[in-house]
């Protein structure tokens, strides 16, 4: 069973102002990045997981997200 980390970026908004999911993730799997670091456009900043196979699906990020933007399936 492959894990998928899905974020509704519209609901999330600008992750730089929150970062709670990144801080809480026990194995530090959540990465925050913009497509271009020169860009300061808040709509361009994203959170994502690269090493999804290491996620234990503890759901800490889902529970902590104040915008209910994260789904882990």
């Amino acid at each position, binding site marked *: 069973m492959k894990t998928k980390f899905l974020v509704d970026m519209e609901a999330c908004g600008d992750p730089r102002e929150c970062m709670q999911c990144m801080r809480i993730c026990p194995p530090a799997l959540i990465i925050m990045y913009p497509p271009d670091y020169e860009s300061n456009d808040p709509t361009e900043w994203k959170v994502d997981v690269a*090493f999804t196979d290491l996620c234990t699906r503890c759901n800490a990020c889902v529970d902590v997200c104040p915008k209910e933007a994260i789904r882990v399936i």
Partner: protein
Amino acid sequence: MKFMCEWCFKHGAGKKWYLNSRNYLRETALEVNAEEYIFEVWKQFEKVYLQRIYGISMKGPGYKFDIPIIGRALKWYVNSWFRKETPLKGRNPRRAEGHPGQVIPLADAKKILEMAEPVIRVNCACRHMTRGIKDPCCLAFGVLAESVPKLPRYVPDRGVEPLHMDEAQDFVEEMNNDGRVHTVWFGPMPYIVALCSCEMPECAAMRIRTSYDLQFLYKGEYVANVDFTKCDGCQSCVSRCSFGALTFDGSMNRPFIDGWQCFGCGLCATACPQGTIQMKERTSFPALKEVW
């Protein structure tokens, strides 16, 4: 890799590769176009982990590496990036080509700081990526020290200030006390750009080495060895190992260090009040001398 560290053989001039002063020189940086290379690595740092290889998304690399045959080929291919030595100029920074690192003990970290110039503290790129925090625990040398001021997210809040050799040595000692693993980095080979203070789980290098066995971070030149006649079983060492190599053997009242798992960081040795744990050359263990 046979019978001695390949990089020491090629780039060590008879010493360990990171103790050869030539690898810190500006001429060496120019030969490999390090300035442009390392700027691009740090600028695009996060994207290295989210890239596609021939159209295949590398999300969940563990799933990809588990695919029969294709998975092994992919892993071989990714590993070939890190050890790439040619062309001297024009290696791909987005694939970290020629940008591997190695675990080193505190004593060697201090020797490195006698040779590197200038040395500045910069925010750890891994912790910034995974936690959004600014922790100025990476020591950047030469062209990396000159590049970082152009990348605001890695500039410490206190600004960029060159460290004196003894300040830098005190700093790595402090990191050692905190349980950080010292690692030294090519950027690109054979030029040396940084001395990092890594820890699990934030450090991307330790992560991909320990979780996927990718050769982005090599095991150190040493292996920890315990002199059982001196050990009094105080257990000061037991919380120090980040690699799962050290457990406490209650029935014998002494630590057990699995040499096959040991990365040679020396954190257990620096915590031992009796000086019981010695770091011995990896090549002095016939069975471990090819285990990097």
